[in-house]
């Protein structure tokens, strides 16, 4: 990661309040190096759009600095920021043709006509819509409009492009295809992208790093695989992917591990990540695919008896819900590998997991 001071985009202690009473964004610090694809991911109302709007200049930060390429831009008007933006509803100008839409940012920059033509053509070719230049936006499909919106945000070669849920209106298949297209464009143009979504698989697919937002705070900023495999706190563990949550009290802390006693008196060996020492409550987080059925003796310190409640066949794996330590929403993913163990509903089975797969996190 680049050194803080030459980060391309910096949020420094940024706060935002709309009504003067509640903070929608609380103390945001974020450094984005040039060329990175950063996604803001979080539940509805967590302040993602607000952050993007502050960066684009349509909202002012109540406190703190936003720095772009070394210059504070708090007092720079939106049209002077040179930031491309893709809106959720695309915001293609309905009274202009596709060509005119793409030419708009070039014309307001007083670019010579010949160059405008050339750039528009290049941008349309980039999104493979060369033949559609003379149509109106209403004559294009949702996916095509979306590509035009991306092309328009890029045609004036901004160094930074913001996208606020640009794929939200598309169906699943088209969305996945567009994810790859945007990703490829990002890679080939080396442009910095700040992307907002609340679809986590989209975030995981596309991003270099993901900032998980909740309640106006970045809960964790990390590459996709870290976020999934090494969540810092209970919110991230719960928000990203499927997660088994167990509540317990820390008995003893030894090295990187700790011993946790659950409500029904069982003890679990876990990796101490973000718990506040012995005697305090902690949330244990355990991914369903890390639970082993009928572990060999001596391999896992955590072995418990579980009762199978429900089996759902999902092709590549069997989603198995069991009752474990008094919780009957404990989920195990049993891979559909050759020679896998067949389970039956109501069957009692021993399950186990390694301490490093079970993370002791904060208790919210």
């Amino acid at each position, binding site marked *: 990661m680049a050194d803080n001071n030459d980060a391309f985009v910096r949020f420094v202690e940024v706060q935002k309040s709309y009504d003067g009473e509640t903070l929608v964004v609380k103390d945001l610090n974020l450094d984005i190096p040039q060329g990175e694809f950063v996604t803001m991911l979080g539940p509805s109302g967590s302040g993602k759009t607000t952050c993007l709007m502050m960066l684009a200049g*349509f909202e002012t930060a109540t406190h703190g600095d936003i720095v772009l390429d070394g210059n504070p831009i708090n007092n720079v008007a939106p*049209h002077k920021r*040179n930031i491309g933006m893709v809106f959720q509803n695309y915001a293609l100008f309905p009274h202009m043709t596709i060509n005119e839409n793409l030419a*708009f940012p070039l014309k*307001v920059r007083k670019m010579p006509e010949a160059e405008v033509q050339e750039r528009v053509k290049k941008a349309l070719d980039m999104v493979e819509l060369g033949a559609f230049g003379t149509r109106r936006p209403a004559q294009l499909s949702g996916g095509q409009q979306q590509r035009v919106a991306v092309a328009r945000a890029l045609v004036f070669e901004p160094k930074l492009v913001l996208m606020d849920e640009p794929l939200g209106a598309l169906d699943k298949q088209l969305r996945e295809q567009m994810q790859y297209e945007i990703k490829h464009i990002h890679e080939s143009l080396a442009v910095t992208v700040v992307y907002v979504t609340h679809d986590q698989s989209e975030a995981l697919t596309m991003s270099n790093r993901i900032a998980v937002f909740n309640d106006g705070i970045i809960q964790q900023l990390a590459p996709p695989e870290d976020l999934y495999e090494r969540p810092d706190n209970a919110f991230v563990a719960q928000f990203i992917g499927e997660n088994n949550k167990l509540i317990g009290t820390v008995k003893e802390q030894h090295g990187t591990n700790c011993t946790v006693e659950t409500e029904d008196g069982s003890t679990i060996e876990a990796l101490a990540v973000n718990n506040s020492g012995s005697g305090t409550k902690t949330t244990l987080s355990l991914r369903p695919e890390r639970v082993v059925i009928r572990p060999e003796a001596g391999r896992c310190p955590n072995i418990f008896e579980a009762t199978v409640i429900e089996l759902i066949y999902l092709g590549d794996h069997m989603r198995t819900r069991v009752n474990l330590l008094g919780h009957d929403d404990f989920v195990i993913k049993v891979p559909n590998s050759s020679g896998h163990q067949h389970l039956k509903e109501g069957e009692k089975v021993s399950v186990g997991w390694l301490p490093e797969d079970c993370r002791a996190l904060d208790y919210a």
Partner: protein
Amino acid sequence: MVQAAQTFQVAEGMSLKAALAKAERRNKTRALLLVLPLLVFVSFTFLAPIAQMMFRSIDNPVVAGVFSETLIVLEDWDPSGAPTPPEKAYETLAAELARGYKNRTVGRAATRLNYSQGGMRSLITKTARKISRVQVGPFMEGRWKDKFLEIDKDWGDREVWATIKYSGDRYTAEFFLKALDLGYDWDKSVTAEPENRQLYFLTGFDSVWWRTFWISALVTALCVLLGYPVAYLLANLPLRISNLLMILVLLPFWTSLLVRTTAWIVVLQTEGVLNDVMMFMGIIDERIQLIFNRFGVVIAMTHILLPFMILPIYSVMKTIPPSYERAARSLGATPWTAFWKVYFPQSLSGIGAGGLLVFILALGYYITPALVGGPTDQLVSYFIADHTNRSLNWGLASSLGAFLLAGVLAVYVLYDKLVGIDNMKLG
């Protein structure tokens, strides 16, 4: 391929088309039943009067009724030949005048003839009065023409007889000609009216028709200029403030037209509020005439029609998401460029709808100009009302009305051609 060309058949050999028509017939019947009361209402209160107005604008029964026998005699007379008709015509007319004088129908005929030719009313009534006293008998044989000329020498005039002849047509285009300051000459060719009788069209820029047109256009333009910013505020201010503003815009709607118009009289009259204020502030040193003239008409009409401009523009602006302007800004447009190149073109259909509405309403405006305008500031509706209520020239009133209706339809069609009526959003 062969199969595709075949018409589809459903059970019992009925073609698919017929089956569809049958299925839809019930729905259509039900729909028709639902709109039937309205249809009946509209045809009685709206379509029938319009049809009647159209009919009256060409209907011409009076002269044909009162002078029916004279008109038969006049059929053989060619005005371009002999300057006066034969003695037989004088004799028949004398009889009909006397009869008309007795049963009081001659006055109506005289009035009607006067529409066509100034001076005819007095000529006819005078002659009728005098001719009814003449003893009828064999001794009058061959002396009727002299008697008429004795009463008034105009009876030797080609034009008087020609007027009676063409005014006797059961159906006539004369009222339409009159509505454009035209009329028939003695040979029934179309000519301009004498200048002292011109009013509607031929007196140039300030004739009734032109005046109606340009005052409406001016009022429409003022409504756009004043209404657009208000609509913009309504659509873009926070809800709490814009609701208040909306009430202020709607308030005039809930006030009687008459009250609003008289309020302008209070404000604008020579001893009124505005003059007082301007005198007090020293802007003027002599009270100025602000009302009962063109200025007052334009001000009051603009005020009264303003909501009809604001609401359509507002309803269009409401549908323009703020993201368009933001997108334009993010693409490098200054606030003005973003407004002018992106926002304004999208609001044009609102201006079109509001403009159409205000212009059409203004074309037919009556009460306001009648109350705050001077005699030379009246629009065409005033003359329609005047001919309907006072001068009772219903033929002319109807033809003015028909032209007004045609004008409104023409504006509508023009708008449809230029903008497309289905782009219009109202309220």
